[in-house]
Each structure stands twice: as C-alpha cells, then as structure tokens.
C-alpha cells in the first residue's frame, strides 16, 4: 500500500467529479448566463446588445401586465394547494393509519400517476372535459344540460389538471407527517372524553402541521412553475408566468426580457424552497 493519503483522496474525488462537472456545465453555467443576459439591453435584430442595463427589471417590475399575470399565477398556486390539501388529508390519514396488508399497494396507487407523463394526463382530461368530451356527452344525453359546459380551455380545466398532477406530492408529505404521530395520543384524548372532532383538531391536526407546511410549499412551487398544464388545458385563454416567460423569450425573441422575468421567478422559487427546507429541518429536529 504505497498510496499516500493525498493520492487516495484524489482518486476518491474522481468518483464525484463527473456528476459535479455535468451539473456545473449544464446547470450552474447556463443559469449564470441567463442572469447575465437579463442585464443586457434588448435588441430587435439580435439576441441582445452589449452593455449593462437594469431596464429589463425596471420594465417588468413597473409593468402592470407582468404583475397581473404573476398575481394570477400565485393565486392559482394558493387555490391548488388548498384544494389538494382538502382532498389529500382524508386519503393520507387513512394511508398512515391503515393496518391493511394492501397498504403498500394503496400507497403505490397514489404515487403511480407520477410515473405517467404530464402530457398524457392532460390528454386524459381533454377527453373528459372537451365540449364533445365524455362528461358533456353524458350530461347532454341525460338531459341535465342543453348546451355543453365550458369545462376546459379556461381556469377550471387548468385547476383540475393542476390538482390531479400535484396531489400525490401532498399525499406523500401528509402521510409521512401523520405516520409520525403516535395514535395512542388520539385514543387517550378520546378516552378522556374528547369528541372525535376535538381530538383531531387539538392533536392530530396541529401535530401534522409540518407535513401540511412542507406539502403546501412543495405543491405551490410545482404549480406556479407548471408549464404544460396551463398550456394544454388552458388553451390560449389563461396566461401564467412560465408561459409569459417562454412567449417573451422565444416567440417575441426578447431574450433579456424573458431572462429577467425568469430571474424574478427564480428568486421566488428559491425563497420558497429555502422555507421548505427550513420546515423540513424543523420537523426532523422535532422527531429526535
């Protein structure tokens, strides 16, 4: 064993290097370049002009249209989180407390939609929600309605898609949190005379708060950065920040404009994610 310590450390580092370089070249540098472009003057004839300017940021941040779209995107995120929470909690509670031997199968069913691509799932919703779709067909034939209901290419369709696609993440976060609560606590409260609802409100709900928080932030981040769902189920009727970014950068060929919007979005996402990590860390500490 004539290998020195330094040589050994060096050869071990070789294990890490390929992945580290890949991420540096195809992730860190491109994002840096995106940031760089966001400070370049816009040009109509080329991608951008030399020089340095804050104009793109000033323009976006004083543009009421940008704010309206951003506000709508964030609102859509909040609505998706709330609906996901409402539908996921009972499901997560049952999964966490289940003693069935089919439990892992039930868990798999919940996360299996994640393995089916987002385009396919949107397509499934299109078959259901279109004017000639299954739901309208059914309602028309039974005579409940006379004209097809507008179920997609609007906010409703987008929300249905968002909730369905991101709900599994909420269920996973909640199931984990509820599993960590000792069921005995609830039984004890009930044996001391608390009603089922009170036991839930005073014990299970507050103790699952870390899961609610982390699941909500995760779903929120995924929703506001979603591109395919508003595009496919919203048609051209609903505009969100990710759609606006791509439209500006590609369709209008305004790289600095699109890049500066992307940086604003990046800041929002990173802030939320650091909050998410803080919540998770806090929950982990609580476990010890």
């Amino acid at each position: 064993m004539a290998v020195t310590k330094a040589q050994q450390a060096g050869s071990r580092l070789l294990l890490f290097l390929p992945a580290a370089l890949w991420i540096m070249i195809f992730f860190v540098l491109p994002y840096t370049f995106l940031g760089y472009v966001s400070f370049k003057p816009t040009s109509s004839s080329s991608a951008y002009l030399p020089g340095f300017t804050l104009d793109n940021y000033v323009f976006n941040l004083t543009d009421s249209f940008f704010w309206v779209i951003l506000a709508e995107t964030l609102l859509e995120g909040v609505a998706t989180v709330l609906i996901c929470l409402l539908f996921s909690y009972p499901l997560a509670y049952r999964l966490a407390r289940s003693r069935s031997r089919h439990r892992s199968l039930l868990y798999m069913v919940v996360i299996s939609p994640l393995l089916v691509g987002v385009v396919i799932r949107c397509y499934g919703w299109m078959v259901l929600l279109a004017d000639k779709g299954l739901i309208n067909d059914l309602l028309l034939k039974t005579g409940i309605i006379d004209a097809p209901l507008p179920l997609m290419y609007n906010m409703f369709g987008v929300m249905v898609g968002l909730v369905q696609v991101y709900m599994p993440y909420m269920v996973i976060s909640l199931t984990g949190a509820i599993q960590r609560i000792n069921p005995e606590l609830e039984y004890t409260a009930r044996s001391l005379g608390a009603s089922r609802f009170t036991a839930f409100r005073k014990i299970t709900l507050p103790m699952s708060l870390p899961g609610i928080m982390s699941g909500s932030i995760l779903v929120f981040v995924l929703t506001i950065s979603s591109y395919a769902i508003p595009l496919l189920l919203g048609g051209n009727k609903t505009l969100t920040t990710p759609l606006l970014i791509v439209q500006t950068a590609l369709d209008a060929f305004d790289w600095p404009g699109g890049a500066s919007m992307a940086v604003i979005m990046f800041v929002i996402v990173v802030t939320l994610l650091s909050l998410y990590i803080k919540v998770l860390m806090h929950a982990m500490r609580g476990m010890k």
Partner: protein
Amino acid sequence: MREQKKNLTDRFIDLMVFLAYVFLLLPTVIVVLAAFNGGEYLHFPPDGFSLKWFSKLFATEQMMESFFFSIRLALAASVTSTLIGLGAALYVVRYAGRLASVLRPYILSPLMLPSILTGLALMISFYSTGIGGKSFLGLYAGHTLITTPYVFLVVSSVLYNFDYSMEEAARNLGATRLQTFFYVTLPHIKNGIIGSGVFAFITSFDQFPLSLLLTGPGYSTLPVQMFDYLRFEFDPVAAAIATINIVLAYGMMFLMEHSVGLKVLYGGKK
C-alpha cells in the same frame, strides 16, 4: 347515538378517500379506454372494442419515430446518469465527511428548480455557444442533468442502509479494495442501482417542458410529438401511443417497487 355518528363520519371519510382515488386514476384510465374504443370520441355507450387506433398508430411515421427517439434518448440519459450518480453517491455517503451537507444539495439542485427555467437557460446557452440549441447533444445533456439527482437520491439511501462491517470483514480476510467492491458492496446495492436506472429512464421518457425547448426538427421526443399532435388533431392515435407509454411506465414501476421500493424516491427515509 354516538356510535351512529361515528359510523357516519367514517363513511364520509371513506367516500372522500374513494373519490380521491378515482380522481387520481381517472385520466390514465380514460386514455386507455379511448385507445381501445372504436369511435373518434369516447361516448356512452362506447363504440365497441377496436384495435384500429393502434394500427393507425403503427402507420403514423412521425409518432413511431419519436417513440424510438425517446427510447434512445432515455437509454442514453439513464445509463449516463446511473454511472455518474452512483459515483457521486459513493463519494458523498462515504468519503465526503462534513462536506456532504454542501455536496448533497449541489447534486440535488437540478431537481429543485423548475424544468421550464432550466430548459430556457440551457436553450439560450446552447444557442449562444453554437453547440446548437436544437441537437441530440442538448437533449441528452438536459435529460441527464434532470435524472442524475434521482439516481443519487436512491443510491445514497441504499448506501446509508448498507452494513459496512461486511466490507471490513472481506478486507480482513484478504480481499483487495476492488475485490471487496465487486464481490461484497456491489451485489448488495445492485438492486438500488437498477431501480434508480429504471426510474431515470421513466423520468427522461416522460420529460416535457425541457424537451419542448430543446427539441428541433427531426429530434422530437414522444411527449413533444404528442403535444403537437393534440394541438391539431384529436383522434385516439395519441391515446394508443399513450397507452403503450402507460403500460411501459407501470411495468417499470412494479420492477422498481420490487427492487428498491418506491418510497425511497418520495420523501422516504434517508
């Protein structure tokens, strides 16, 4: 009185849970039904069982081409990310020491940021450096970037649960470092590696926003092709290819569950 109320609450929760399951599975089931339905649209009652959309699919050249293109791309990306992700996981779990708390988030970072932003950043970078914004290389680089963190996540969780005393035993009995790795360590983490590779494959195969920005003429991935198709036509050819995709994904999921357990991927234990 109280007993009855409890049953009512229970039933209400059961109903909610049932509806949640239906809601989660509905679009997938509908796509499969549409693929085997005889008519252009799915109505009640259905038009009867038919395989005609599949035969039309096999005759739709661009669909089949992008299907095989996606398979090639997913194979390239998953093999690469399995290799580099495994290396990174070995290093971070075993040798990085205190640095692990910095290196781990670094490797996981591509997973954290929206792929639409990553796609935009990659596209303008490729375009500017002349690699060409629309090449196989760009797609390959982007997909490998997205799938590597998953491999890292799965393999490092397997490594955390690995019993190191077995390696020590092998070394004490005279095995070399390489022998120990190939005869002791590798067989134990093999399932984790295969599982992570399979998951990387599915992730690449399903990837949409990144591909949309990096796909060019002649280089269309299946989700992008389906997306284009759905904008102009609404016939169930898309449902037929989607069904093949769904069967592939579920098959691989069972493989995954069998090899490592899916929990590892989604906030399971570290």
